[in-house]
C-alpha cells in the first residue's frame, strides 16, 4: 500500500511542483503589494518626519540664538505632529503613527492635543516654510505687538525664518531656503535688520575692544524689545503704544545708521570703560550702556560721568536718558537683571512727556 502511494507521489511530483510554485506565486502577490506599501509608507513617514523635525529644530535654534527669549521659547510646544501633508500629487499620511504618538504623549507626557487643519494647495516645500514661519511668528510676532509696528515684526519673522533655513539647509532643503529668501527680499525693513545682524556694524559701533563676536540683533536689540514689551504689556492707550513703536523704530534706525555707540560693562575697572567712551564719543550722537547682573549698579555712575562729559565738551546740560530695565531668563532659565541705558546728546528721540 505504502509502495503504491510513494509510486503515485513520484509519478505526480512534476505536476505537484507546478501546483506548489503556482500557489507560491499567488501568495507572493499580496507579499509584493505589502512590501510596496511598506516602502511607500516609509517614504511618507520620512517626509512627515522632515516637517516635524523642521519645527523642533526651530525651537532648538531659538533656544540657542535668542537666549533672552528663553521664557517664550520654553513655553511653546517643543514638538508638533504632522498628520497629513501633500507631496507633489501624493497624500502623505500615517494615521496609525499619529494615533500612537498622540496617545503616548497624552498618557505619558500629559499633554492635550488639538488639530489644526490648513486648507490651501501648498507644495511640500511651502508646507515646510509655513511651519518654520509659524513657529517664529509664535515667538516673535504676537509678543511685540505693542513695541514694534506690523511691518517690522513681519520683517523680523521673515528674517529669522530665512536665517534658520539657511543654517539648517540639510534639514529643510535648498528649495525652502530659496522660498524664504524670496519672501524676506520683499520685507520692508530688510536693510535695517540685515545691518543690525551684521558683524561689521557690531565691530564699528561697539566701544569695547575686540573680540566681541555676537551680532547686536540677538544680543542687544531683542533683549531691549523684550524689556520694553514687558514694561508696556498692560498699557492699552493707543497713543502711548504708537509713541513707543515710533521711539523703538527711531532707536533701531539710529543704531543701524551707526549713530549710537554701544558699550558692554563687565569685570574691568569702570574708569577703563569710561576711557573707551571718551575715546570715541565724538563719533556718535549717543551711547547705549549694556549691563546685566551685578554690573547694573554701575549704570548710575556712567550716566553721571557721561553727562559731565557732554557738559564739559559739548555744552549739553540735559542729555536725553532712557532706561530699559527688567529681568530676563538666562541660559540656566534663572532670571537675570538687565539694564540698558541710552544717553543721547539731543532729544531727537521723542519722549513721552
Amino acid at each position, binding site marked *: 500500500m505504502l509502495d503504491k502511494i510513494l509510486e503515485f507521489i513520484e509519478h505526480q511530483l512534476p505536476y505537484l511542483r507546478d501546483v506548489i510554485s503556482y500557489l507560491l506565486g499567488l501568495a507572493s502577490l499580496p507579499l509584493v503589494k505589502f512590501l510596496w506599501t511598506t516602502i511607500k509608507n516609509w517614504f511618507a513617514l520620512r517626509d512627515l518626519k522632515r*516637517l516635524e523635525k523642521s519645527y523642533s529644530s526651530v525651537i532648538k535654534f531659538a533656544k540657542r540664538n535668542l537666549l533672552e527669549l528663553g521664557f517664550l521659547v*520654553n*513655553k*511653546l*510646544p*517643543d*514638538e*508638533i*505632529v*504632522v*498628520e*497629513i*501633508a*501633500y507631496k507633489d500629487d501624493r497624500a502623505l499620511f500615517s494615521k496609525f503613527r*499619529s494615533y500612537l504618538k*498622540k496617545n503616548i*504623549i*497624552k498618557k505619558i507626557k*500629559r*499633554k*492635550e*492635543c*488639538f*488639530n*489644526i*487643519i*490648513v*486648507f*490651501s*494647495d*501648498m507644495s511640500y516645500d511651502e*508646507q515646510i516654510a509655513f*511651519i518654520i514661519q*509659524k*513657529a517664529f*511668528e*509664535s515667538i516673535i*510676532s*504676537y509678543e511685540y505687538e505693542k513695541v514694534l509696528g506690523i511691518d517690522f515684526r*513681519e520683517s523680523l519673522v521673515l528674517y529669522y525664518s530665512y536665517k534658520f533655513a539657511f543654517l539648517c539647509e540639510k534639514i529643510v532643503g535648498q528649495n525652502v531656503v530659496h522660498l524664504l529668501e524670496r519672501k524676506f527680499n520683499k520685507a520692508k525693513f530688510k536693510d535695517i535688520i540685515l545691518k543690525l545682524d551684521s558683524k561689521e556694524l557690531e565691530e564699528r559701533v561697539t566701544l569695547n575692544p575686540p573680540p566681541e563676536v555676537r551680532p547686536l540683533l540677538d544680543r542687544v536689540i531683542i533683549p531691549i524689545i523684550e524689556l520694553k514689551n514687558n514694561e508696556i*504689556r*498692560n498699557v492699552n492707550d493707543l497713543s502711548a503704544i504708537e509713541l513707543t513703536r515710533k521711539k523703538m523704530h527711531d532707536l533701531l534706525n539710529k543704531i543701524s545708521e551707526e549713530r549710537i555707540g554701544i558699550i558692554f560693562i563687565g569685570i574691568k575697572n569702570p574708569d577703563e570703560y569710561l576711557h573707551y567712551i571718551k575715546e570715541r564719543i565724538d563719533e556718535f550722537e549717543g551711547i547705549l550702556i549694556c549691563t546685566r547682573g551685578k554690573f547694573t549698579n554701575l549704570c548710575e555712575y556712567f550716566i553721571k560721568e557721561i553727562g559731565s562729559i557732554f557738559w564739559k565738551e559739548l555744552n549739553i546740560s540735559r542729555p536725553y536718558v532712557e532706561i530699559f530695565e527688567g529681568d530676563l531668563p538666562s541660559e540656566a532659565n534663572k532670571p537675570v537683571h538687565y539694564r540698558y541705558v541710552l544717553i543721547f546728546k539731543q532729544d531727537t528721540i521723542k519722549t513721552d512727556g
Partner: protein
Amino acid sequence: MASKENSRVEVKNVRSAYGSLCRLLPVISFARRSDIDKYLKMYNVNLESGKFRCAICGDVVTRENIYALIVNGPSIKVICNKPSCQARLTINTPYYAR
C-alpha cells in the same frame, strides 16, 4: 482702581495662557481645498448656517473663504482666508483667538 484690577487680571491671563500652552501638542494637517467638504463633514461643521465666524476678524466664514479649522476637543474654531487672518494663525492661536 479699576484699571489696576484690569491689569492684574490681564497679567494672570497671559501667564496662565503660556502655562497651559506648553502642555499642548498641535497636530497639523495640510489639506487640499478640494477636501474641504470631507473635513467639514468629519467634524460636523455646517458653514451654510452662517453661525461660524472667523476667530480672528469675526467675519462670517463660508465654504469659499475658509482657511483653517482648529479643533480643540469639543470647541471648533474657523479662520477665514483674509491675508491678515492667515498671518495671525499661529501654533498658539487657540489662546489668542477670540
